[in-house]
């Protein structure tokens, strides 16, 4: 077991799950060492730190691994309690935040992936579902600045990495986030002005380039 002090993040550049951890630490001003993994040839360190899933992201804090992005974000919150909180202090409000982060976790990535992986009827169905998901989230956001209210919080961290994929989803499935869920579109732009988000999300064109490369590799037209 590595016994060096400090924080290392084993990650993959475009991963929205890894970005949750990066953004959370940036928001809290926590220094960390970023280690890019080659997912086609996973490092011994990754396999040792996450033997169960063998996936990124993995946060290694003083030699001890924490896996699963939302578990990592909650750990960051609890291990650095003196830093800007991402979760509210009231247990009921915390439960609501966890509920919505969990909703994002359950719904956005899988449905989003189907937007570019499928064709024809399947793609149409995925598009309909994705728009519904955005509208449910929009309804929850309401007229607030962030999901965290006045402050950027846990649900914002959970969802913001996917804003870099909106362009890919829109292009692949033929719809507009701004038209279907204008408040989400505004929220995404607002988040995009934060230092943590600017630093750790990639431009939408780069993400789309990645999606196209994946499609080619998977033999999808």
């Amino acid at each position: 077991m590595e016994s060096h002090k400090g924080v290392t993040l084993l990650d993959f550049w475009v991963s929205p799950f890894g970005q949750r951890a990066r953004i959370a630490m940036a928001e809290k001003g926590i220094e960390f060492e970023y280690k890019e993994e080659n997912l086609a040839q996973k490092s011994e360190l990754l396999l040792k730190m996450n033997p169960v899933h063998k996936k990124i992201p993995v946060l290694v804090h003083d030699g001890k691994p924490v896996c699963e992005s939302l578990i990592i974000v909650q750990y960051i919150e609890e291990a650095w309690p003196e830093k800007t909180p991402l979760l509210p202090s009231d247990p009921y409000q915390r439960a609501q935040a966890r509920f919505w982060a969990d909703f994002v976790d359950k719904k956005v990535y899988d449905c989003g992936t189907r937007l570019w992986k499928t064709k024809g009827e399947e793609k149409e169905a995925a598009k309909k579902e994705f728009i519904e998901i955005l509208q449910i989230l929009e309804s929850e956001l309401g007229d607030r600045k962030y999901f965290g209210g006045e402050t950027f919080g846990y649900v914002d961290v959970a969802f913001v990495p996917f804003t870099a994929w909106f362009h890919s989803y829109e292009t692949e499935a033929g719809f507009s986030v701004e038209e279907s869920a204008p408040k989400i579109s505004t929220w995404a732009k607002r988040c995009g002005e934060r230092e943590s988000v600017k630093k750790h999300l990639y431009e939408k064109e780069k993400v789309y380039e990645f999606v196209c490369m994946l499609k080619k590799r998977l033999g999808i037209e």
Partner: protein
Amino acid sequence: MEAEEMELFGIWSSPYVLRVIWALNIKKIKYKYIEEDLNNKSNLLLHYNPVYKKVPVLVYKGKPICESMIIVEFIEETWKNDSIFPKDPYEKAKARFLAKFVEDKLSPPMWRFFTTKGKDQEEAYESFTDYLAILERELEGKEFFGGENIGFVDILLGCMSYVVPIYEEITDFEIITKEKFPLLHAWMQAFLSSDIVRDNLPPRDELLYRYRKIREAFLSKDN
């Protein structure tokens, strides 16, 4: 606290509902239980859980909390007696990780095992026994995943303690035996006989009947 302040919407057979009941028992919280009919969901349930329309829903002082794991965390954070989670952030992260592992990795192949036959069933069996081995290792030196007392992971995994013997009876497979998984086997007995669980289990006969019907329905779909 009056029982009316706390309401739990559930169905008798749901392992997710039981997680909440066990957590409420650990904290010694009184509550009012409302049995739902999933074929005819009440307006109240739909009002309290518009996103998923599912049980369990915990309603505390009129405010709803949904999703069993989130409900258990809420109970932990609101009542400070008899901790369900470790205090240390790293140990807490490990508990959350193991709980998610149970939900995401262990449960699907177990269900697949129970609802299929032949090669599909055998593959599912191989899959989940690998995952059971991971849990077995986690129990080394401990009676419960939470240590001396029942904790978050025990609650999440808990339904296995009564479902696995039912699966074994119906499918005629050995799943958790003293020989294969001695620690898990001991854990099951300890869990089932604990104060918070013992009187809060679904009736075995009714469960057996229900699960038999479920397996029959799935197998007949394949024909």
